[in-house]
C-alpha cells in the first residue's frame, strides 16, 4: 500500500516535472516573442505608433494677391463666413437646423445632406451648412448663438475680384481642382491639390502664375485618437503665403477701356512701345470670374456659352480678325524695303484690273494720282494693290512677320492664337491651292487670308512706333521661376532690320491719318500737339460683298449686325517721342475711324497724362462698382461692438 502510494507520488512528481518543464519552455517563448517585438522590431512599431497618432494636416496658404501697376488690388482673398454644425453639441440636429433656417436659407436637399453627413461622420466632426454668408447673416447667427446649440461659424478664405467682369480676361479665375489637373503630375503632385475645397488658377494670369500665387502649404501635426478626434497640436509650420503678383495693367485705364467699349464685341490692347508692358487688355463682353469661384449654375454656364458675342473668349489674344487697312503699313514698308520710293505715284481710278477681274477701291470715285504717305492717309486700296503686284506678297509676309504678325506674341496669358500671314507654301499646305496673282491684291490690304489678333496689331503698331525694335508684350512685372517671382529686368530688344528711312515714311503717313483733314482718323485726332497721335484705321469685310451689292449702295445700318464690317484701329502717341501703342478691333463696328478711333484717342490721352501723374483722374470714368453680394466690413472687431463688451469691461 505504502509502496504503491510512493510509486504514485513518484509518478506524479515525475510527470509534474515534465509538465512544469513544458510550461517553462512556453513561458520562455513569450519572453522571446517580447524580445522580438519590443527590441528587434521596436523601431518599426514606434514608427507605426506615430503614424497612428500623428495626423499631418495641411494648412492652405493664403493665395497671393494680384495688383495693378499702382499697387491697387485686382484679385484679393476675402473672408468666407461659413456656418457649421457639430452633431455632438446639440441634442437634436433637426431642431438646430429648424432654428437656423430662420436666419439662413436651408434648402430641403441641403437639410437632408447635412443630417446624412452628421450621421455618417464622427459626432465631433463639423458639417457645412452654408457658406459665403453675408455680413448681416453672419451677425444674426452670432447673436443667436445661445439658441443654436451645435452651430459654429468658421472663417475661410475665398478669392474675390473687385473688378468683377472688368478684368476677367486678364485675371482669369480660380476653381476647384479637377481630375485633369492632377493627371501627369505623378508623385510630384503638390499635396495642396488634394485638399478639399482648394482652388487653383484655371485661366488668365491666375493660371500662368499659379505656382507662385499658390504659395507653399503649411502643416500642422496633431495628435488624434483612434476615432480621429484631435487631442492636441504637436507642431505647426505655417508654410509660405503666395506671392503678390504685380501687373503692368493700369486699373483705371482698364476700367475706362471696358467702359468705353461697352456692349460692343471688341478687343483692345495698349502697351508701352519700349518696355512691352501691357497697360490695358480689354475684351468685351466679359464675365464675372467671381461666379466661377463660387460655382456657376447650369443656366449661367449656358448663357455664357451660347451668347453670340462670346464673353468667354479673350478677343484680344484669341480673336483673329482680318486686319484690313491697318495692314497697309506692312505693305508700304515692304515696298519701301524693296526699293519703291515714297514719292512713287499710282493713279487710282477707283478700281484695279488684273486679268479678267476687277478689284474695287473703297472710294469708288478714285483717289487720282497718289503717293505713298497720302495713300496711307486716305487708305487708298489701289495704291497697295499695285505695290503688292509689283513686289509680290512673299516680301510683304516676310516684313509682317518681323512686326510680330503670324506668330503668337508670347504674352503671359494662356490661349493666345497666332493669326495667319499667308504665303505660297502656306496656301499650298493648308488649302492645297497655288498662289493666284489676285491673292497678292486681297492680302495686301489686310483681307483675304491675313488674320491677326488685336494684340498682334498693337504689337505691330508698337514696333513701328519704337523704330523697329522687337519689343514683346507682357502683363506681369515679375517673371515666374519655379514657384517664385523675380522682378522682370529691362530688356534690350533686337533690331528687326527695317531701315529708319522706311519707318519714317510710315510714321509720316500715320501722322497724316490722324492729323490732316481727309485723314481717315482726322475726326478722332488729339488736338494737343504735345500728345498728338499717329494712327491707321481699317474696316474689314467679314463676308464677300458682291459687285451688285456695291452698286446697290445698301445703307450701312440696314445690314444685319453679324454681316457688318469689323472696325479696326491702331495708333501710337505721342508722335514726338512714341511711348504708347494701341490696337483695337470692334466686331462689326463698320469703320475704324469712327467706331474705334475715339476710344483709342481717349485712352492714349489718359495714358499720357497718367505717365506723368499715375493718379491723374480720367474724365468720364465711372466710379468702381461695389462688389455685389458679399459686403464684408473691414475686420470684425469685438471691442468696437458695444454689445459684445464683456461685463465689467471698459
Amino acid at each position: 500500500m505504502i509502496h504503491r502510494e510512493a510509486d504514485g507520488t513518484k509518478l506524479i512528481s515525475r510527470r509534474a516535472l515534465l509538465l512544469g518543464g513544458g510550461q517553462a519552455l512556453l513561458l520562455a517563448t513569450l519572453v522571446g516573442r517580447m524580445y522580438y517585438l519590443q527590441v528587434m522590431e521596436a523601431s518599426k512599431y514606434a514608427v507605426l505608433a506615430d503614424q497612428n497618432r500623428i495626423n499631418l494636416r495641411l494648412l492652405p496658404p493664403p493665395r497671393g494677391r494680384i495688383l495693378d501697376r499702382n499697387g491697387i488690388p485686382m484679385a484679393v482673398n476675402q473672408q468666407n463666413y461659413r456656418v457649421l454644425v457639430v452633431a455632438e453639441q446639440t441634442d437634436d440636429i433637426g431642431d438646430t437646423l429648424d432654428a437656423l433656417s430662420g436666419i439662413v436659407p436651408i434648402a430641403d436637399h441641403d437639410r437632408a445632406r447635412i443630417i446624412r453627413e452628421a450621421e455618417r461622420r464622427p459626432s465631433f466632426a463639423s458639417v457645412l451648412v452654408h457658406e459665403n454668408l453675408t455680413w448681416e447673416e453672419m451677425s444674426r447667427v452670432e447673436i443667436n448663438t445661445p439658441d443654436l446649440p451645435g452651430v459654429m461659424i468658421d472663417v475661410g478664405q475665398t478669392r474675390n475680384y473687385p473688378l468683377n467682369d472688368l478684368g476677367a480676361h486678364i485675371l482669369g479665375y480660380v476653381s476647384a481642382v479637377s481630375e485633369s489637373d492632377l493627371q501627369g503630375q505623378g508623385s510630384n503632385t503638390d499635396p495642396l491639390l488634394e485638399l478639399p475645397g482648394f482652388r487653383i488658377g484655371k485661366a488668365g494670369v491666375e493660371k500662368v502664375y499659379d505656382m507662385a500665387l499658390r504659395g507653399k502649404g503649411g502643416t500642422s501635426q496633431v495628435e488624434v485618437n483612434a476615432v480621429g478626434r484631435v487631442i492636441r497640436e504637436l507642431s505647426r509650420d505655417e508654410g509660405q503665403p503666395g506671392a503678390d503678383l504685380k501687373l503692368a495693367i493700369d486699373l483705371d485705364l482698364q476700367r475706362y477701356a471696358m467702359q468705353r467699349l461697352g456692349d460692343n464685341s471688341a478687343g483692345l490692347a495698349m502697351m508701352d512701345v519700349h518696355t512691352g508692358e501691357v497697360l490695358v487688355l480689354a475684351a468685351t463682353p466679359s464675365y464675372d470670374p467671381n461666379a466661377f469661384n463660387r460655382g456657376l449654375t447650369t443656366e449661367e454656364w449656358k448663357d455664357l456659352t451660347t451668347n453670340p458675342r462670346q464673353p468667354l473668349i479673350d478677343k484680344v489674344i484669341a480673336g483673329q480678325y482680318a486686319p484690313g487697312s491697318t495692314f497697309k503699313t506692312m505693305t508700304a514698308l515692304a515696298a519701301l524695303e524693296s526699293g519703291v520710293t515714297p514719292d512713287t505715284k499710282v493713279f487710282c481710278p477707283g478700281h484695279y484690273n488684273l486679268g479678267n477681274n476687277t478689284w474695287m477701291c473703297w472710294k469708288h470715285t478714285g483717289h487720282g494720282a497718289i503717293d505713298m504717305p497720302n495713300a496711307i492717309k486716305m487708305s487708298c486700296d489701289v495704291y497697295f494693290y499695285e505695290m503688292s503686284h509689283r513686289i509680290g506678297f512673299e516680301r510683304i509676309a516676310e516684313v509682317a512677320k518681323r512686326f510680330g504678325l503670324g506668330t503668337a506674341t508670347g504674352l503671359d496669358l494662356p490661349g493666345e492664337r497666332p493669326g495667319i500671314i499667308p504665303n505660297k507654301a502656306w496656301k499650298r499646305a493648308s488649302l492645297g491651292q497655288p498662289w493666284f496673282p489676285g491673292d497678292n491684291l486681297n492680302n495686301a490690304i489686310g483681307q483675304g487670308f491675313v488674320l491677326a489678333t488685336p494684340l498682334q496689331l498693337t504689337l505691330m503698331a508698337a514696333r513701328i512706333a519704337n523704330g523697329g525694335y522687337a519689343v514683346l508684350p507682357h502683363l506681369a512685372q515679375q517673371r515666374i521661376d519655379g514657384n517664385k517671382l523675380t522682378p522682370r529686368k529691362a530688356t534690350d530688344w533686337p533690331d528687326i532690320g527695317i531701315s529708319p528711312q522706311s519707318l519714317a515714311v510710315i510714321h509720316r503717313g500715320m501722322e497724316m491719318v490722324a492729323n490732316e483733314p481727309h485723314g481717315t482718323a482726322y475726326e478722332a485726332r488729339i488736338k494737343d500737339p504735345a500728345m498728338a497721335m499717329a494712327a491707321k484705321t481699317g474696316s474689314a469685310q467679314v463676308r464677300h460683298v458682291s459687285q451688285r451689292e456695291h452698286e446697290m449702295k445698301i445703307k450701312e445700318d440696314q445690314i444685319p449686325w453679324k454681316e457688318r464690317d469689323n472696325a479696326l484701329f491702331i495708333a501710337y502717341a505721342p508722335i514726338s517721342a512714341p511711348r504708347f501703342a494701341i490696337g483695337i478691333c470692334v466686331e462689326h463696328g463698320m469703320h475704324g475711324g469712327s467706331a474705334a478711333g475715339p476710344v483709342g484717342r481717349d485712352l492714349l490721352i489718359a495714358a499720357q497724362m497718367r505717365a506723368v501723374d499715375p493718379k491723374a483722374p480720367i474724365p468720364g470714368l465711372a466710379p468702381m462698382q461695389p462688389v455685389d453680394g458679399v459686403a464684408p466690413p473691414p475686420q470684425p472687431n469685438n471691442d468696437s461692438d458695444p454689445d459684445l463688451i464683456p461685463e465689467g469691461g471698459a
Partner: protein
Amino acid sequence: MAGSIRSRFGSGEMRLGEKFWHVSWSFVLLIALVCGIGFLTLYSAANGSIEPWAIRQMFRFAVGVAVMLGVAMVDIRAWMRWSYVLYGVALVLLVGVQLHGSSSLGAQRWIDLGFIQLQPSEIMKITMVLALARYFHGSTPQDTGRPLFLIIPLLLVLLPAGLVLKQPDMGTAMMLVLAGGALFFLAGVRTWMFAVVIALGGAAVPVVWKFMRDYQKQRILTFLDPESDPLGSGYHIMQSKIALGSGGLFGKGFMLGTQSHLNFLPEKQTDFIFTQMAEEWGMVGGVALLSLYTLIIIWGYALSLRCRTQFGRLMGLGLTTTFFLYVFINIAMVMGLVPVVGVPLPLISYGGTAMLTLLFGFGLILSAYIHRDVPIGRHGPEIG
C-alpha cells in the same frame, strides 16, 4: 513523536489559528503583488483615475482574498467530498446559460442570479479540476492504462468543453481541454495514448476541412491569421503589436502609452491589458510581470507537491496549470502568437468572475497545502 504531530494533522483537528499559521504567506504576497500591478495598470487605463476600474477591482480583490482564505481553511476532505456535486452544479449552470443566458459581446456567457452575474464557464475551470482530481484519486497505473477507465473522465472534460464551445467561447473550451489533458498526464495516462489522440486529431483535420463550406474555411483562416484581415479582426492584433513594439525595452512611461490612451488599443482594461502594461513599462516591465507569474506557478507546483494525497496533488497541479494557461494564452494572444480567443490576463484584467475564480482556486491550493498530511484512503474521504 513524529506520530503525534502527524496524528494532529492527520486527524485534521487543527485549530483555525494553526491553519492560518500554515497558510503560505509568501504565495499570498506574490498574488497580491500581481494584483497591485493590475490596479496600477487599470488606474492608467482610466487616464489616471481609480474610477471606474481600479477601485472596483480593489474591492473584488478584497472580497476575493477573504474567499481564498476561507476556502483554504476548509478541510480538503470536504472539498473532495463535494467535488462531484460542485461539478454537477457548474454543469447545470452551463446548460442554464445555454437556455437563458444573456448575450454579451455576441457570446452567451453570463447567467444572472439576481444579485450577481455569473460566468459558469469560469466556475467550470475549477470544478472540472476538482472532479478529475477526485476521479483519479487512488487510481493505479493499471487503472489509467485501461481505456475504459478513461471514458468517464473524458466525458467530464468534453461535456463542459462542448457546451462552452457552443456559446461560442473558444478560449475557455481550449483551456478546459488543455487543463483536462494535463490532469490525464499527471494521473499517469500513458504517453502513447496522447500520441494516438493527437495523431487522430491531426488526421481528421484535412477530412473535416474537405467537408467545410468556403465561408467556413474563410472564417477559420481569418481566425488563425487575423492579419490577413487588417480592417476587421486583424485590426486589434495589429494595434496590439504596435503598442507592444513601440513600447520598446523600457516603455513609454507610466500613463504615457499613446496606443492605449488614444484608444487605438481595443479592450485595454480587459483582455489586452498586458499590451498596455508592456507599452508603458516596456519589455522590462513585461518580463518582470512574467517572472512574478512564473514564481506563482513554481509556488503552486511546490505547494501542491508537498501534499501527500493524490487528490490534493492533482487538484493543486491542475489548478496551477489552469493558471498557467490563463497567463500563456492571454499573453501569446496579445502578442499575435495564438488567435484572439478571449482569455483574460489572470489577476490583472478587469473583471469580477475571473478574479474570484482564480482566488478561489488559489484557496484550494492553499487548502491542499495546509491539509497536506491529512490522509485520504484510496476510495475517498468517507472510507479513509
